[in-house]
């Protein structure tokens, strides 16, 4: 049989790589802005779209889907062709994929600061964009499988298994978590409510980390680390165990985000058990990556690429040890809702993802431009600035996390809280927030150094659009080697591999989610819990729009320190009408689940206008636009209709006469405000009135019962 000559397409790998650098810088600059706002809250300039609650979502989405996302695609488009000895299947699909993904990112950059959000973390984008993501993702999958089908290499290398598992699982997670009924083109309500919504969200959220930030990047590790070290993978056996064990176990671990919440106890325990088991495949993978450098450690001294890879893999090891430890209930009780969690996350994103990406860029770009890196010295400088940046980012956040958590839990001998005012625990850690911003700045400076280096490298070379290679085509009939094992069978069959990966991840989902969705006893109903009034529902949507849940939880855990501070702990039955759930994941400010009735209307009014006037030293931004904006009620009736479809019991009379009911409640709040504050300029149609109605409603149903 004759050898065939063919050409690898470098264009889309290059475009994705450049998009990685551009969006990466933007995403991190937004992160830095948000970090600085926690030190200088006035940095929102009294502007809605510059406010922390909205920027935070933009930062996380940008870092995950724009920075890491583009880098994954760059790595896949480069490695897939070479591992399969064939050109990528469709130039048109590659083009569609690239531009479609950039448009999605652009739409996120526009809609998230506008406050168009579903509030579900890392899935904030509204439904039309969700559909676009699904379409572009499928285009990517088709292009990948088509390429696999026309390959000249019989066996699929382990990196490709990771890419395939990424493709199927992300598709599954994305679709299930974004199931929603639209109210309008820019607003929807998720089909799940309360506890179920929380479980689905964190099944998604945790696996977004697993299957977007981990498995595809592991695929890149299995390709680029052997390349850069010029060594075969340390153990292929280990990589097989690594792959199957990782995708098997990861999918079960989601509930560890919900320990001590109103989620049923059995689901919490299941999440913990599988999280602990995850240490083994994760560390197996880490060791496999590091040991690939056996006999090449001397090269690490010279090569910036290898330095980046070594620290990246080490950070992967650190984060995947820390993750299981954090899912132990006793540790979680301390760490959850504190800055320990962002510290843990950023070891993963800045260390593992970021440094893998930088290593890949420094290795790949000179090759695609047929030149050598402009300056090794600059790359090494980038490495050191970046490493110091990560340390300065993470260490202060660990200190802040421990400090605040201990302050939350400290009691006087007479049984009262030492720091009864939540604010004292915030002002204590503001210096740590400032140090974190320094760490972030250093990391960004490192990226700018890389930018210059990359620019000069590109200038000095010529881009190789098409790269020639040759290989024998596959024979039609493959003769099975004698005594072959079943796994080699699957290594030759991409479609079966995809199906089995899907089966594997579905198993975890089924076992965890099915019982919660169907067994009524898991969510005991509470008779006194009633649906929100139409005004409260509108207020709740403002709460979602402003991203209040980025800083405030709505979940009082059953600890003495929390019930003493906030009141009765939260019950699953209290959230049955919450589409979406708003439990939050971080307490930069206090929990709000029992805030209803705690303060007067006027307190909330003044607090939203100028938080420092009510709580001197507060780092909450001002929300002046809520006082001028009239409440948009165009979709109010439709919102009620959608809620009814979702099983919320509004009467037909209530839906028909919603305006009357809204008017009554708004008038009462406005009258109170006029009574409480002299010369107040408030109209009953102001947005702030709806928000106050919602805040005053929070958590009071159960008080009524008592």
């Amino acid at each position: 049989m004759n050898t065939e000559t063919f050409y690898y397409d470098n264009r889309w790998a290059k475009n994705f790589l450049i998009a990685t650098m551009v969006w990466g810088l933007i995403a991190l600059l937004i992160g830095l802005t948000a970090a600085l706002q926690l030190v200088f809250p006035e940095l929102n300039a009294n502007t809605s779209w510059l406010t922390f609650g909205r920027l935070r979502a933009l930062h996380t989405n940008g870092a995950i889907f724009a920075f890491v996302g583009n880098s994954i695609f760059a790595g896949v488009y480069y490695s897939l062709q070479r591992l399969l000895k064939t050109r990528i299947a469709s130039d048109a699909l590659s083009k569609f994929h690239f531009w479609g993904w950039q448009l999605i990112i652009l739409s996120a950059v526009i809609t998230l600061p506008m406050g168009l959000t579903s509030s579900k973390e890392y899935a904030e984008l509204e439904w039309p964009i969700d559909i676009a993501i699904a379409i572009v993702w499928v285009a990517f999958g088709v292009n990948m499988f088509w390429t696999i089908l026309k390959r000249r290499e019989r066996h699929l290398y382990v990196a490709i298994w990771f890419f395939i598992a990424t493709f199927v699982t992300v598709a599954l997670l994305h679709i299930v978590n974004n199931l929603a009924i639209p109210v309008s083109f820019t607003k929807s309500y998720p089909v799940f409510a309360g506890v179920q919504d929380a479980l689905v969200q964190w099944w998604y959220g945790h696996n977004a980390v697993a299957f977007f930030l981990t498995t595809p990047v592991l695929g890149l590790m299995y390709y680029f680390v052997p390349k850069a070290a010029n060594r075969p993978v340390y153990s292929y056996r280990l990589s097989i165990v690594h792959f199957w064990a990782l995708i098997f176990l990861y999918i079960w671990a989601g509930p560890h985000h919900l320990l001590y919440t109103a989620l049923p106890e059995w689901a919490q325990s299941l999440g913990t058990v599988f999280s602990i088991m995850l240490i083994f495949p994760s560390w197996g993978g880490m060791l496999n990556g590091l040991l690939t450098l056996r006999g090449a450690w001397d090269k690490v001294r010279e090569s910036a690429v290898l330095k980046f890879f070594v620290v990246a893999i080490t950070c992967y090891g650190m984060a995947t040890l820390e993750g299981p430890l954090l899912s132990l209930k006793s540790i979680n009780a301390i760490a959850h809702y504190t800055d320990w969690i962002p510290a843990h996350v950023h070891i993963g994103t800045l260390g593992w993802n970021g440094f893998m990406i930088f290593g890949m860029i420094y290795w790949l770009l000179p090759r695609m431009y047929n030149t050598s890196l402009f300056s090794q010295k600059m790359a090494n400088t980038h490495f050191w600035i970046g490493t110091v940046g990560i340390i300065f980012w993470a260490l202060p956040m660990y200190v802040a996390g421990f400090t605040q958590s201990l302050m939350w839990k400290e009691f006087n001998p007479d049984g009262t809280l030492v720091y009864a005012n939540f604010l004292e625990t915030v002002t204590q850690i503001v210096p740590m927030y400032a140090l974190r911003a320094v760490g972030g700045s250093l990391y960004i400076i490192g990226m700018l150094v890389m930018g210059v280096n990359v620019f000069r490298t590109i200038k000095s070379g010529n881009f190789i659009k098409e790269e020639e290679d040759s290989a024998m085509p596959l024979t039609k009939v493959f003769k099975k080697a004698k005594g072959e094992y079943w796994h080699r069978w699957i290594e030759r069959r991409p479609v079966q591999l995809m199906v089995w990966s899907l089966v594997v991840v579905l198993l975890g989902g089924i076992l965890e989610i099915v019982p919660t969705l169907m067994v009524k006893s898991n969510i005991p109903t509470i008779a006194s819990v009633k649906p929100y009034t139409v005004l409260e529902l509108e207020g709740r949507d403002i709460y979602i729009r402003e991203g209040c849940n980025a800083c405030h939880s709505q979940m009082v855990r059953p600890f003495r320190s929390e019930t003493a501070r906030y009141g009765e702990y939260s019950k699953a039955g209290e959230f049955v009408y919450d589409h979406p759930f708003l439990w939050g994941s971080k307490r930069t400010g206090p929990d709000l689940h029992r805030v209803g009735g705690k303060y007067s209307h006027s307190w909330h009014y003044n607090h939203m206008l100028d938080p420092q006037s009510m709580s001197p030293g507060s780092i909450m931004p001002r929300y002046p636009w809520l006082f001028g904006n009239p409440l948009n009620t165009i979709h109010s009736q439709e919102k009620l209709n959608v809620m009814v479809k979702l099983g919320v019991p509004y009467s037909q009379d209530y839906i028909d006469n919603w305006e009357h009911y809204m008017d009554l409640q708004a008038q009462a709040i406005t009258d109170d405000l006029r009574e409480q504050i002299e010369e107040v300029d408030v109209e009953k149609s102001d947005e702030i009135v709806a928000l106050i109605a919602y805040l005053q409603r929070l958590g009071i149903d159960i008080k009524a019962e008592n």
Partner: protein
Amino acid sequence: MLKFIKHHMDSIDGIGLYPVLSFLIFFTVFILMLVYIIAVDKKTMKARSSMALNNNELKAFENENQ
């Protein structure tokens, strides 16, 4: 559409078996994989582990290790 997603899985007879079945498949596949890992021959594994490297890179590595 919605009724297939919400509240209606309880209409499936014996759905309680699904989680048990999931668990069994989970362990079976896992054990099978481990059996394979232990039994597979060394030569195949060695060839697979250098798939990321092209011929030149592989030669360079082999020369280095001679």
